């Protein structure tokens, strides 16, 4: 029984490693962001899943076993979420720099709002009465009333 479980571990972990390898090759070789994401999610979901599955017989029931499975479930959740967000950003287009990861609006945390640029390089929109181009379709335009408004509710 012990030997059978060990063989199961070796086979499953190696299969998981294969998916990580395939995912990495895909990440390096595929032509555009969407296909690269596809390759990555295979590594995350199947690769990690098989490694966790393979390690289960070697863990102490119940705590370590549950911990390992939980880690895999959270990696699945995070991987699926980030994959969606990055695919959204990639479809919206843009260069391959921060722009792609941080689009002006949509399903993403916005770390690079145009207000950054206003502080360093130009006066507030309220002062020039000009709305920065990237703010055109933002839900909170930078005009004088918006400056005195509270947070969106």
């Amino acid at each position, binding site marked *: 029984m012990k030997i059978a479980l060990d063989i199961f571990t070796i086979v499953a972990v190696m299969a998981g490693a294969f998916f990580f390898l395939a995912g990495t090759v895909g990440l390096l070789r595929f032509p555009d962001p969407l296909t690269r994401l596809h390759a990555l999610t295979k590594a995350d979901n199947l690769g990690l899943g098989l490694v966790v599955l393979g390690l289960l017989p070697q863990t102490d029931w119940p705590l370590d076993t549950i911990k390992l499975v939980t880690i895999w479930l*959270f990696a699945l*959740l*995070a991987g*699926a*979420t980030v994959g*969606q*967000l990055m695919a959204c950003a990639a479809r919206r287009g843009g260069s391959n*720099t*921060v*722009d792609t990861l*941080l689009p*002006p*609006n*949509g*399903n*993403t*945390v*916005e*770390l*690079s*709002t145009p*207000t*950054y*640029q*206003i*502080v*360093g*390089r130009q006066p*507030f929109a309220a002062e020039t009465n000009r709305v920065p181009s990237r703010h055109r379709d*933002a*839900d*909170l335009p930078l005009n004088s009333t*918006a*400056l*005195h*408004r*509270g*947070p*969106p509710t």
Partner: protein
Amino acid sequence: MTLALAVDIGLTLLILAMAAWTIAVRDTFASVIGFVTYGLLLTLVWVRLAAPDVALTEAAMGGGLTGALLIGAAARLRSTESASRTERPSVLTRTLAAVLSAAVTAALAICVLNLPDPAPTLAPAAAAQLGSTGVGNPVTAVLLAYRAMDTLLEAIVVLLALVGVWSLAHDRAWGGYPQLRSHADPDGILAYFARVMAPVGIIVGIYIFWIGADFPGGKFQGATILAAMWLLVIGAGLAHLPPVSQTWLRVLLVAGPLVFIVIGFAGLVTAEAVFAYPNGYAKPLILAIEIALMPTLVLALALLVAGAPQRMPPQ
């Protein structure tokens, strides 16, 4: 050659390659990603060196928090990047920088290679006095009993960094809302992720904070996780950052270091020295400091990532 040694050598080579790439790559954003990867590899090294406390800190602060701060900085610098790329420093400057860096590395290498064997250590002394502090994790004992002054200064440095970030605010936004805000769809996938993840993350963060007394963990690691959860909820559009002029916010930010200082100087009266704890009261006092520091660190770390105020507070 054993398998473990092969893994260690592979890890070392990867780290060296990652460090070189982080320095060599011209694009700021790529360099930041390199640095985050470097931090994650360093975490594995600390695990291999049987230092889980340091590994946890490196993963939370070195990889996670610093990574988030640097990505924010890279986004901020993006508009100036093409301009700065044309200004290449002179050969003399670059040579001097390279020589200086190489000298520092060489000095460190010589020091490490010439350490006496076995290396001098205070570990037995720290372990011997562990009972009098009431905590079970020697790292926590060092941080909050033997070298409490260092930890106090660390907390104050985080606070000063936050003041520094705030001082970058435009005059008209002073005391207003930090710029981090979300255009996320409240029914979108990020909101779903935040709803599932935040409750679990909050429990994990508090657990890591609480377990720090006896096992690897502690307030800095726990606070980083809690700050990340707060930012996740804000990023998903489920909550909003308060304006930085809020009184409760400022009180909580100052409370941690203040409690620490008060307890530290009370040691002059109740024990023999500053930051000495009276006999038998070490554990409750350490706990009081930790609990007071926790909100300070969570708020300070999250607000550091959120950046300078950008919008006016309500009139």
